[in-house]
């Protein structure tokens, strides 16, 4: 697998990964603001599904029709849609694309959900690797509390209730997130994650992020005026 830079794309893709509640969305938002205010061609991409895929996914979730295999496939469909319709065209057009979650979320989640790792990796092999990946590593208890304090109602699949970890949604969620963290850590070296200590202050993390991005990416190249 190659990065977008290695494949000769003019754009660069920066991905953030981490558990729910690790603060990654705040960090990528601040990174986007910084790049924007510098007048660079930047685009923020979330996991926004097309209506069609969304309709099937929500039906499947509502009716708990999904097995690990179909859960994995429907999310891969969703990702492919985002990849082909949004990410690739932007990267061809020379944008800095910031992704809140990328293929590593699927690698970790689907493997925890018992899918064979090689199969899952194969599914996503059409996607290029990010040019930079930030992994926000927080203590499991910290991220759990951030989620569990603010949003007491856990969704069925979100809590991994179909996996039979526990009949208590909170306990199930804890086990699920704990295993996700193990998977992320196991991938960290293989995919050269830039590990950010998410227990630090927002500002400390952001300063590290901005420095790493400025060091690794030739930012003036992405100036609107230059294009």
């Amino acid at each position, binding site marked *: 697998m190659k990065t977008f830079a290695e494949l000769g794309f003019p754009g660069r893709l920066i991905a953030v990964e981490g558990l729910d509640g690790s603060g990654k969305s705040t960090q990528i938002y601040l990174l986007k603001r910084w790049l924007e205010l510098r007048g660079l061609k930047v685009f923020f991409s979330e996991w926004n599904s*097309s209506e069609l895929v969304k309709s099937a996914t929500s039906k499947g979730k509502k009716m708990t029709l999904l*097995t690990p295999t*179909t859960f994995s496939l429907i999310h891969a469909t969703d990702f*492919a849609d985002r990849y082909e319709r949004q990410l690739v065209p932007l990267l061809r057009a020379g944008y800095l694309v910031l992704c809140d979650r990328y293929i590593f979320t699927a690698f970790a989640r689907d493997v925890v959900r018992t899918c064979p790792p*090689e199969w899952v990796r194969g*599914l996503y092999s059409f996607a290029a690797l990010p040019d930079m990946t930030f992994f926000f590593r927080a203590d499991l208890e910290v991220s759990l509390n951030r989620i569990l304090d603010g949003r007491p109602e856990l969704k069925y699949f979100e809590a991994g209730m179909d996996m039979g970890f526990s009949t208590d949604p909170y306990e199930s969620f804890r086990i699920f997130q704990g295993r996700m963290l193990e998977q992320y850590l196991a991938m960290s070296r293989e995919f050269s994650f830039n590990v950010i200590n998410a227990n630090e202050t927002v500002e400390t993390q952001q300063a590290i992020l901005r420095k790493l991005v400025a060091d690794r990416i030739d930012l003036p190249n992405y100036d609107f005026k230059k294009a």
Partner: protein
Amino acid sequence: MATTPRKAKRLAAAPRTPEVIIPKPTPKRFYGEGIPGVDEEKLRGKLIVVEGADGSGRSTQIAQLVQWLEGSGHATVQVGLKRSSLVSEELEKAQQGNILSRTTLSLFYATDFADQVENIMLPALKAGFMVLADRYIYTLMARDIVRGMDETWLKNLYGIALVPDAVFYLNISPEQLVQRNFAKNKALDYWESGMDLGLSRDMFDSFLKYQALMALQFKRLQSVYGFEMVDADRSTEDVNADLRRKIESVLAGR
């Protein structure tokens, strides 16, 4: 008592003796990694796949096979493409709007397939049913290969599919295919004509070119997966007699 043609057909479909043949179980396996948590040993039923282009007579043949199998005391269930409760509606809409790009559409079809594997095929095979599949992963793979998708990627994707007990490919000449398509639909189908590929702006021309490309891929896949080629230019009855004979030997575990 005079025998009406319909009655004659019914009699032909019924077994000669009241004896019901117990199918001999044969080991099942997946093409690749398979579905998590499935014990292949417990899949006692038989999986029979009928492949072929649109208009090759697949559904007619399957309907007659169901009659015959049920008449012989076997429980049957049917699967096919775009029939899952999970995504079939959305898939239909996606095709009509032609809005999804190729990897997305390919994965959407795989989702539809996987849903049927888990919710229909595996439970039925466990219960000892005869599962008749109107098309299978070979059609999905051939369509995608013609559209330039990577074959290794497709093989991994469809590692979730069971190896069938028999695969029959209804082979039909392009001339016959055109005739039958017009007889069936009065017009050529956009996707079956491969119009998305831009082979030709003329639909008839595109249909012939696309079906030739598909036939080529099927021929190649046949050498990999070993389907039985069945000459479908013959009468429905002749083709069906041929299929029954072959399925009988599948039931006998040969």
